[in-house]
């Protein structure tokens, strides 16, 4: 079983990202669950969401405490939330930011991508509210090798209500521009 935790802020699409990732793995015949840690929904407040992926039906329904991967949609969260808490020592972390933004990166396989610029370039959201959830999944596909880039694109097309082409472009660009550390 592979467990992923998403950190974002209300309005950035962390919950949708967790669902798109689950859908991508589902398209590859895996069993999946995806769920938010549901706080009081406010734009800008820290949001956590989770995805589990396994070959067989998933029974575990608690929150994820020792993730295999962490995805950070907003780097400013790293000042208020311990995003690497419980992350397995060989874990993966994807940060929407530039190389070096994660201070204690040494132990982990880290992918950096400027998902904000990519989202804005593709007309996803506006400068005060960029929608980075699809771009960051392009980076996830590159760093994790868990699901294919094509499955992420297909799942995104299935899930997003509009701007399908723009979202798929953002995923491709993020995949190409992700820096591994």
């Amino acid at each position, binding site marked *: 079983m592979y467990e992923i935790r998403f950190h974002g802020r209300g309005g950035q699409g962390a919950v949708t990202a967790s669902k798109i990732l689950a*859908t991508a793995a589902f398209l590859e015949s895996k069993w*999946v*669950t*995806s769920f938010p840690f*549901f706080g009081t929904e406010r734009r800008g407040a820290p949001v956590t969401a989770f995805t589990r992926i396994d070959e067989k039906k*998933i*029974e575990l*329904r*608690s929150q994820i*405490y020792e993730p295999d991967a962490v995805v950070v949609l907003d780097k400013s969260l790293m000042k208020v939330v311990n995003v690497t808490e419980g992350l397995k020592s060989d874990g993966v972390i994807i940060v929407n930011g530039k190389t070096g933004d994660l201070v204690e990166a040494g132990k982990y396989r880290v992918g950096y991508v400027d998902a904000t610029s990519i989202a804005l370039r593709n007309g996803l959201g506006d400068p005060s509210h960029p929608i980075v959830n699809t771009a960051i999944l392009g980076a996830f596909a590159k760093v994790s090798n868990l699901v294919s880039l094509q499955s992420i694109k297909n799942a995104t097309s299935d899930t997003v209500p509009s701007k399908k082409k723009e979202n798929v472009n953002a995923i491709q660009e993020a995949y190409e521009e992700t820096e591994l550390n």
Partner: protein
Amino acid sequence: MEAVQSSRRIMTGNEAVATGVKLSKVKVVSAYPITPQTTIVEKLADMVANGELDAKYIEVESEHSAMASVIASELTGARSYTASSSHGILYMHENLHWAAGMRVPLVMSVVNRAIGPPWSIWGEQTDTFNQKDTGWMQVYCESNQEAMDSVILGYKIAENKKILLPLMNMLDAFTLSHTSEPVEIRDEKTAHDYLGDLDLDFKIDYKNPAGYGSLVAPDGPFMEMKKDMRDSMYNAAGIIREEISNFNNLFEANLPGLTENFMMEDADYALITAGAISSTAKYTVRKLREKGQKVGLIRLYFYRPFPGEEILKAVKGLKGLGVVERNVSYGQRGPTFEDVVSALYRRADVPVRNYVVGLGGRDIRVKDYEKMFENLVEGDNEMEWINVGVK
């Protein structure tokens, strides 16, 4: 009947429920939104608005009125549905008795949410355990698949003329309602043929006016009607067993019986759970079995009628049984514990313990179930509150 064509999709528990309503050819929906039920009724409102569901959607100002509306619409012969949660269910309580007492075979989904104060929007089953004596059948779902299937099966059972009692199907808040997972969507035509149209022998008919629920003197049929309700609920267990088996054959589904026995053969110690909290319990049982511990789980799918016979059979040979409550009662043990002990009274010799977990949405982890299994072996007979006062 045609072969079942099925297809699998990822959906939340609330989406699964709304799809189950659509597959049940419901004609009237009336509901008042409340977190975490809201997305069920939003989805249904969308389906009615875009023509996917040929039904009337009645907006109301409260849950009490929502229940009053669907009682009335069902009495005209139109299959009706509502959904609620937490304080909404409490506000509806009076009309829950009216629905059951008037023998209206409604189905309602309840997303189990804590009761305030203090205020909480998270999961807990106290809201519906408080309704166990209203004459409604109760089903606690473990997965989104069951959430969908229980709506369709629910109408079949509720509308059975030997039963004619309403049914509520429960989903744990967020753990099912807002969790996405794969669900097999049942074939629409097969579901429609399976249920047919609602056929009530008594209907409101403006050409032949009649009174319903009027005053009955002490020597009138009041007590007889209550006894008939009790008998119908009691006898429903046998019909439900058959109907679940029919449902599974027709839809290639995998619903349990009134209960599910998980790794119970040769078990020494077992827990009893209801709802989606059972999944993590199963995960724990599997883990402890790998370490050689003979443990198992009994899951309550139906809670009303209470599956006493199933439990009696399952506990044979156990050295200890733990009843897990995700609800709270004051001044006595938990309601499930009382029901289990009553079912086993003078018929089984097994020590029974009682655990309270997961109130106000507190996460229930593998280590919590491990602690319960440890306590079953070593603990005293006090009611244990799990993961309380520890950080």
